[in-house]
């Protein structure tokens, strides 16, 4: 198997995720796009681990999964809080930092 196949797949997923983060209005959908980015990273980690014959790739992928779980938990809690305060989860409406 070619290492590059996996890396390019990761790159495609990453860029799709970036597009989702930038273009989506709904807060939950933005979080889903972040999951795509994290999975792209994980594919890279495991592929490099297999390529270099080191277990560290898998170990770090597992850490990333654990951190992703924490991120989704806190992220969804924030989305819920926004929804409760504004009756909407449209992230384009949240512009309190407007100069």
């Amino acid at each position, binding site marked *: 198997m070619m290492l590059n196949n996996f890396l390019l797949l990761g790159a495609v997923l990453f860029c799709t995720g*970036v597009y989702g*983060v*930038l*273009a989506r209005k709904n807060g939950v959908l933005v979080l889903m796009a972040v999951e795509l980015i994290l999975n792209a990273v994980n594919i890279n980690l495991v592929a490099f681990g297999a390529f270099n014959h080191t277990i*560290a790739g898998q170990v770090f992928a597992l850490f990333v999964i654990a951190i992703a779980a924490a991120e989704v938990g806190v992220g969804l809690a924030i989305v819920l809080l926004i929804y409760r305060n504004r009756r909407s989860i449209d*992230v*384009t409406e*949240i*512009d*309190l*930092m*407007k*100069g």
Partner: protein
Amino acid sequence: MGLLRNAWVIPAIPAASFFVILLFGKRLPRLGSEVGILSLLASWLLATGCAIQWIRLPLDHESHLRAPVTRGFTWWHTGDVRIGAGIHIDGLTVMMLFVVTFISLLVHIYSSAYMKDDRRFTHFYAALSLFTASMLLLVVADNLLLLLVGWELVGLCSFMLIGHWWEEKDNSNAALKAFFTTRTGDAGFMIGIVILFFAADRTFNIAAINHAALDGHIGHGVLLVGAIALFMGPIGKSAQFPLHTWLPDAMAGPTPVSALIHAATMVVAGVYVVARCYGVFWEAFSIGNGGINLVAIIGGITILIAAALAFVQDDIKKVLAYSTVSQLGYMIMGLGVGAWTGAIFHLFTHAFFKANLFLGAGSVSHSGSHHSFDMKKDMGGLRAHMPTTYRTFLIGSIALAGVPPLAGFWSKDEILNAAGKNGFAVFMVVGLIGAVMTAAYMTRCVYLTFFGEYRGHGHPHESPPAITGPLVVLSFFSVVAGLLALGQKFGHWTLNDVIEEAHVPEFPFAWSAAFVGTTAGLIGITIGALYYFRNAGPHRLTERSTAARRGYALLANRYYLDHLYTGVIVGGIKGPLARAAYWFNQNVLDGIVHGAAAGARGAATFTYDVIDQKVVDGLVNGAGASAEESGGLLRTIQTGRVQQYAAVLFAATAIFAIALIRWA
């Protein structure tokens, strides 16, 4: 050997005592103070035992040194990096252990009377115990990471203790100032630790780093950057110029805290780190070549500016605080000029007489001046009312002034001697000037406190034995501690392999230097005595001479450094620019206008109409308008929409990556 190998117990006892006091202190008959005192007594006895064992340790046959006792375990490891934790006991460590436990024990005893009926008595003792434990941990640590843990805990305890009476805004402000100022230095300190970690092949071990630095394993450029970064920590913690401003404010804490933390132990942590990592500093700054270097310069500047500031303080604790800053400058300068033994010997002796002076000042305020520290308003003439405090304070002052055979003379002399012999003549002169000033301001301080008429409104009396006891003990040590220099005993006991490997020169006692140093001290005392006791010399100078008045204002405002930090750096660009524009307008433009007007009224009108109204006003208005416009333009970018910011972020990352691929 047994005690030395188990020296980790010395910090462990006060650490345990911290938890015991915190959890059970309030239920104990003496509110936890007995736990603190007993644990410190145990620590001190063990430290003394360590010192005796260390001195009796046989010399190695080849190196003629006592081999350091080390012991450790793997603290944690991640990947293939193992981080150890352990103790490294050598002469320097043993000396520090003795000093810290001894001063801390006396302060614990003293506080039982001084802090009696305090609102947070138990909390105070818990914090004192934790402070002592962290300082001892810092001292025994064999690697920089463990040392950093102690270092930060010390800072935290200092914050808690300075702000002990936090109900008053000034006190909590002082605590915050101390914390933030030292943190400023700590940022550099951590960067330095990380640089040295990688430079010395991924180890935090201090001995390994020192040896790597000395045998040329680390490139000089990296070593220099690492040493400068590391030195930021001591500049903050040991209150060196320009981060010395926190220490005088830290006098807002209770007096025993000032004695323990801000005179004898915590502030010398910076000096200790420089002495401990001396291989790094020696090699990085090429101290052996007699060149001007950062360490010596910082120390020298600190000596002079702090000593000058001590003259204009009316608060007795602030005089002592500036004196501490100045004496720390001596130690740092000593390390910078290759006087390693002299510097740590000064650390040793200074701890005794400075703790003595601070506790004496506390005794004065406790029983003589109604909890005031103002020498001009509430003291004076206390000699008759408080004989023990007076005598011990006088001994401490003389020791600080450097009169033989008291402690301060021997250590100061050693630094000056080495500075002269190592080719640092400039710094020797700085040290001598500092010695004159030290003697003079201490004379002023003693005069204002103990002589003349009593100016307070209370009923001064002698303090209770729990306060005078420690004073007597400390003044005894202030007299005899210096005698360890005889026959270079102290130097032999503390000498370690790093100093030997670096070929730091050791000098025997020199009569010439001793004579010069003593003369400097006596001149200072004479000047002070003539000025205050005999009323000779130019009094009321500030009322007659503008230069003197300006100098006084400069000192009274502490060289405007606080203004620099709070005012100028915040609103800095606005003020001077506005003034410069005004000056330009007043002088240059008006000059042109007046000159033209003198020539011809018509030309003047022309000038007024065209140049002043159109060009100048145009420029001024234009500048304002363009600022407004560019602000408005920038404002449109600030949409507040995070996704736009993210788009710019990702695009910028991609473009930087392209640039990196293309040109690197």
